[in-house]
């Protein structure tokens, strides 16, 4: 029989979400906590994000990724919150039994009072993009290249084209330039960038790296190592316009084409996944539809700023602690729908009557619109928004009083002229 231990709260993932949740749960008085981290140190993806810009909202100062992580690592150590490193969770079931493994304990099980899922996300790889051409070395996701450069100290290449203007791609455009590589251009399939405005300014414009909107890579060249790529402009249906095709010589193609929440464990527990976010469907306390299992951070939906991840993790930790202490929810049962312009909201459900902030992203660039919340065709909340962009996460808070007014157990969040 394999060993089984009991824990009140088990947190899967020791990145910013997992650590923030652990610290918040501790500060709410919970002591029997365990963080399980698959890497050899706490900090998650922040460890390789050595650029600054983290923590402006939370700490009022510009920190690097490792510095931001360190603030929470210090708390974890100060509170003596137990954690296991190089520990991989391989399964979770509906009854909150986790299967995990590491070199010291072998394969073991944990019976958890509550579980917080904080596994983060991964990058969309080349294969998923179906780019035609050869399959040489020299094609990396931006995050993998970031790991080679920042963590391992090796250069993946010296002449670079970047496909996709997600934030990691923009950051890597600057990083590769600073490390002596020539970044030829950043191609973005959409007519706008999915990255933060400040990153376009600081990572591309400041280094004269062209951002080619409505462009994509249509072919990869090179037998053993990349020798170049063919790029082309795309039409409004995102199809390449062949007579705009041109060859760019390079030895490296970096991909920054979207992040995918890592929800294999979530699925194994039978939790419902939202088709838009690829994360779990959760209520205001970030509880999934499997009792006692919560989710926060990039595993729930991809965030633009780590500050919001910490914020969400704290909400999530409160929910988990309340659950462990047997506090009932369910005074409300409201589904949140969106109109497509608003792509999704987190949470997707409201189960409590209390002030609740909805986090959302939009599908295109919108100017001078009203963010509107309707219940049974009646507007219950309306807020003017000057500019909304897909790359930036937005929020709107619904007060307890407004929630009381909701009819038919459903609201719709939309953008109106």
């Amino acid at each position, binding site marked *: *029989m*394999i060993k089984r231990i009991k824990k009140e709260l088990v947190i899967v993932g020791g990145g910013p979400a997992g650590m923030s949740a652990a610290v918040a749960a501790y500060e709410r008085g919970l002591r029997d906590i365990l963080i399980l981290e*698959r890497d050899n140190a706490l900090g998650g993806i922040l460890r390789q994000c050595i650029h600054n810009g983290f923590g402006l909202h939370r700490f009022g100062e510009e920190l690097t990724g490792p510095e931001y992580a360190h603030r929470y690592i210090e708390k974890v150590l100060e509170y003596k919150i137990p954690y296991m490193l*190089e520990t*991989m969770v*391989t399964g979770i079931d509906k009854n909150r039994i986790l*299967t995990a*493994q*590491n*070199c*010291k*304990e*072998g*394969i073991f099980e944990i019976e958890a009072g509550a579980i917080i899922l904080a596994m983060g996300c*991964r*990058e969309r*790889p*080349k*294969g*998923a993009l*179906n780019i*035609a*051409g*050869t*399959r*040489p*070395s*020299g094609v*990396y*996701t931006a*995050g*993998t290249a970031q*790991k*080679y*450069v920042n*963590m*391992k*100290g*090796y*250069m*993946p*290449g*010296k002449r670079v084209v970047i496909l996709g203007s997600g934030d990691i791609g923009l950051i890597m455009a600057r990083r590769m330039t600073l*490390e002596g590589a020539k970044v030829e251009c950043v191609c973005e399939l959409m007519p706008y960038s999915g990255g933060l405005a400040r990153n376009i300014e600081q990572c591309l414009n400041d280094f004269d790296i062209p951002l080619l909107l409505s462009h994509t890579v*249509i*072919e990869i060249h090179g*037998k*053993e*190592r990349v020798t170049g790529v063919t790029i082309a402009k795309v039409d409004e249906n995102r199809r390449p316009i062949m007579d705009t095709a041109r060859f760019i010589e390079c*030895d490296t193609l970096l991909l920054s084409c979207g992040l*995918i929440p*890592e929800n*294999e464990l979530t699925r194994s527990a039978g939790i419902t996944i939202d088709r838009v976010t690829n994360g779990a469907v959760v209520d205001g306390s970030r509880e999934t539809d499997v009792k006692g299992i919560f989710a926060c951070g990039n595993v729930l939906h991809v965030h633009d700023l780590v500050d919001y991840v910490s914020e969400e993790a704290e909400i999530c930790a409160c929910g988990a602690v309340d659950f462990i202490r047997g506090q009932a929810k369910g005074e409300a049962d409201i589904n949140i729908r969106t109109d497509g312009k608003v792509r999704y909201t987190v949470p997707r459900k409201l189960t409590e009557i209390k002030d609740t902030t909805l986090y959302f992203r939009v599908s295109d660039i919108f100017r001078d619109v009203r963010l509107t919340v309707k219940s049974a065709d009646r507007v219950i909340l309306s807020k003017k928004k000057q500019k909304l962009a897909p790359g930036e996460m937005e929020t709107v808070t619904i007060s307890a009083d407004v929630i009381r007014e909701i009819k038919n157990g459903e609201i719709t969040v939309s953008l109106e002229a």
Partner: protein
Amino acid sequence: MCYNTDIKEFYYIRYIHVIFDLISIEVDIMHDICIIGAGVVGGCVARELMKYKLDVVIAEKMGDVAMGATKANSAIVHAGFDAKEGSLKAKLNVRGSKMMEEYCRELGVKYKNNGSLVLGFNDDDRETLNALMQRGIANGVEGLRVVDRDEVLKLEPNIGDEVVAALVAPTGGIVCPYELCMAAVGNAMDNGAELKLNFPVTRIEKTEKGYKVYSGDEFIEAEIVINCAGVYSDDVARMAGDSSFTVTPRRGEYILLDKEWGTLVSHTVFQCPSKMGKGILVTPTVDGNLLLGPTAEDISDKEDTSTTASGIETVKRMASRSVSGLNFGGTITSFTGLRATGSVGDFIINCKDGFVNCAGIESPGLSSAPAIAEYVRDLLIESGVRLTPRENHISKRKPLHAFRELSNDEKNEIIKEHPEYAHIICRCETISEGEILEAIRTNPKPHDLDGVKRRTRSGMGRCQGGFCAPYVVELLAKELGCDYQDITKFGGESYINIGKTKE
């Protein structure tokens, strides 16, 4: 003074080398057999011949085994109803298909007898299905029957709307082709065969005793040469003076879908064949993915394994006709394989003056490979080679996926001794450091990232190595005793890093 010593030492070492070179040329080992090409055919032939007291060396052009057609094909064990009655293809396919399950069991290779369907979309197709069935019966394929849509739906609920009938072949199966090849070569090596990688054959010289197979200035001398060179088998034959056939690379593009879609069909689902091949199929793989393809296009470049936008579109369109509910958002990767299509219309397997051709081994080459090996053995016997069974022959091979298939308790027993089996490197496929190290140390040993991937599945999952590659590179560098930056993706100039930062 110091300088002089160095010079002296230098010349001394040179001198010693020259002497050794001379000696090695003089007494250079005369092998019994040199197999050219370490694909699935070369591998199975080597395994077969190592059952006997023979000294076998395998010469492979690339830095790893299974790098040609073996690496990229449909991974199907065909039942054997396609090939023309009386052809070598028909005979060896049916025999190979019958051998495959036991063959894979011995070698620890994943095989599944999932059965296959050929779909018919109209009345013409129905006639084709009946003709295929008759041909299959003539070829000795068991259990064939043609069924109507209702029956097809019972077997495969996600079948396309246009399907009116299907030929059911219960003996059809699936296997991992590169795993089969690696296991066969590995087993041959466990019995003493030698594998020479990065040995592209450039010239073949007939000698009194046999042949000298050259790669540049280097050569292997053997009494018998067996040509299993895939798309290059016509070139190799020509080097030995045989210009009786040519081989055309036939490009086939594939799409591999995530395991999430691996159960959309349980059978291998074909469409009616044409003269260019068996059409686009949809099949589960032994590892639980869904594979779609291939297209069929004759090309001239034997190295062109690029994918094309139009090819991938064709695969999507045709596959969607067979099966409803395909989601191409679940694409893991797309790739291209080159089948070695011979000019003769059948497998070209013959023996003359100690030179054996196994050429034009296109589909059903994988299904036939174990039977081709037996056939070659018999050709050798016919030509007067005396085969004595090898004493202490090892017939089985421990698979690299053995650990994965243990129960948790059994795994814990191993982890106690070897904790590295608990340290997960590849998250998507849950592959441990222990399994990766085992693969790096097992014959035939990998030397690059893709080699580790094919052996362990590390990097084969959803993130396509985004997370694990930097760690696997580290393990490889450590095990091979080289620098981090020396590790390649698949040999040659396919470097992963070009040097240190700040240099």
